[in-house]
């Protein structure tokens, strides 16, 4: 009796140890290095708290394209952030949300987010991981509660397994959902436009592009600073308030009247694809934007000091600037199969334009 018991205990102990060792190896996700394009600064995102892994990125991508994150299943992150528009709402001034509602702002393109400290046009969100919570829960966007999203994901065996591969066990919580989403969107690095190739010495500008770049460096770079083509600041550029949107911009966050109608300087990367322009998408073409700066803008008491006399631009300059801005379109990024809906990399069909 005693002998048999001892043998059993030995067997159990060996199994337990073997299990311990195996579990540890089996569930370790594969690390993925974050490549910083040559000459770019260190990212501001804290990768130590959320290290990139193959499994984490894959899970984030699946979540990004999953309509179940919305109340009625129609609105994934990807429905308003479309790859062919550099992850903006392509050709939409405002995006379409739950129950035939419109958003109040233009959905910006998503790229190079690892270098961005604050999010939204007013900078109200202070961490990339927190960003998805706003569209998920806003009544005019995805209109869902975090509890319901977690419930839906927990009910799906596929997700339980993917959370385990990415994070070590089947726990599904707010932090893991948002960290996985961050991992995916952090991989959306746009650094392969013609401009980038020229800077790396692999290509050359044609004459209008070259002239445009010179004008750009004289008149635009103090706000649209290279290499991100934004200095991430908030400025009043003479955009009057829309009487229906009543959007005060940065003032809504800081409560300071000096911040009235200030909005984040948008990146100009992929600007050829991210129309309409402006925080509420009021400009449908680059030409309209140039007209705003040189003629129609309203100079207010807190309009940016660089724009006190508007921004004088000749027709010639506008032409050359446009040629330069088109070199910022990163066609590698716009078609990168790693960034489309899961499974689309094996698909020859053109991307589905799914805007509900």
């Amino acid at each position, binding site marked *: 009796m005693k002998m048999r*018991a001892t043998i059993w205990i030995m067997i159990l102990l060996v199994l337990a140890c073997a299990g311990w060792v195996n579990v540890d190896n089996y569930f370790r996700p594969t690390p993925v290095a974050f490549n910083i394009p040559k000459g770019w600064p260190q990212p501001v995102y804290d990768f130590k708290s959320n290290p990139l892994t193959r499994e984490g990125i894959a899970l984030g991508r699946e979540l990004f394209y999953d309509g179940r994150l919305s109340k009625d299943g129609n609105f994934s992150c990807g429905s308003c952030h479309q790859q062919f528009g550099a992850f903006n709402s392509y050709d939409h001034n405002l995006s379409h949300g739950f129950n035939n509602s419109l958003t109040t702002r233009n959905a910006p393109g998503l790229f190079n987010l690892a270098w961005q400290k604050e999010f939204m046009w007013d900078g109200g*969100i202070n*961490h*990339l991981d927190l960003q998805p919570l706003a569209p998920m829960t806003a009544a005019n966007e995805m209109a869902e509660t975090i509890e319901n999203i977690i419930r839906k994901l927990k009910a799906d065996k596929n997700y339980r397994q993917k959370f385990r591969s990415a994070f070590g066990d089947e726990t599904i919580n707010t932090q893991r959902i948002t960290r996985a989403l961050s991992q995916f969107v952090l991989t959306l690095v746009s650094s392969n436009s013609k401009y980038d190739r020229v800077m790396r010495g692999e290509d050359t500008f044609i004459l209008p592009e070259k002239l445009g770049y010179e004008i750009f460096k004289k008149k635009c770079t103090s706000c649209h600073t290279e290499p991100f083509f934004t200095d991430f600041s908030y400025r009043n550029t003479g955009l009057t308030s829309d009487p229906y949107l009543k959007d005060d911009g940065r003032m809504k966050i800081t409560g300071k009247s000096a911040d009235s109608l200030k909005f984040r300087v948008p990146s100009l990367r992929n600007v050829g694809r991210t129309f309409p322009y402006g925080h509420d998408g009021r400009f449908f073409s680059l030409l309209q934007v140039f007209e705003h700066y040189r003629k129609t803008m309203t100079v207010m008491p807190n309009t940016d000091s660089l724009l006190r006399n508007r921004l004088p631009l000749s027709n010639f300059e506008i032409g050359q600037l446009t040629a330069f801005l088109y070199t910022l379109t990163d066609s590698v990024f716009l078609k990168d199969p790693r960034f489309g809906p899961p499974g689309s990399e094996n698909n020859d069909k053109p991307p589905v334009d799914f805007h509900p």
Partner: protein
Amino acid sequence: MKLIASMFCLLLLAGWRSPEPGGIVLRFENRAGNEVLIPGNTYVLRNGDTVTPYRFKYYISRIKAVSGDGRSVSLSDEHYLIDAADSASQVIALKDPGFPVAMISFVIGVDSIRNVSGVQTGALDPLHGMFWTWNSGYVMAKLEGSSPASHIAGRQFTYHVGGYRDENNTTRTVQLHLPDGMNQQNITVIADINAWFSGKNKIRISSTPVCHSPGELAMQLADNYSTMFSIARP
């Protein structure tokens, strides 16, 4: 067989966490005046307004014990969300300070670092409805309900108090002296919602039914509710 049985017993014992001997149990009792606050019930405030609170929640953190001679020891690094609708949330088991306690101190609110470090877990998980998604930061304390004094839709009042940045920082430190000779291990802290309205700042539901962003009003409410606590006398 005996051996296996005793091993199981050992395992069970190892897994069982008994309350630490000498540890402090802090209970929060939410009240409206002398009555225990139960969400959905109606109360008359000291300022004469009638209210039916339906949500009352607040964060407690940095709980410390201070001895008669001024020694101070941290009793927990955790944040706790006290919810009037969840009795389990109102009891906090803490460690043994190792000396007779003269004063308990805690912060009502969430550390600024947790407001800027992405998505947190546990009591700080944004799904508890105590987080502003559009202007990142925690709602430190929340009091919602209805009142005939309110002139907005649904005769509601909704006070969501938050803000962690310098001049709008709504965290408040509360210090409560323990009366002499009271039980040191079972301390009941009373939180009276009257202070929200009748503290240093007079807040009337009729004129100010809503607070939903950091700023002056949130600071006034935070000053007010920082005085809502008292130690229940045995």
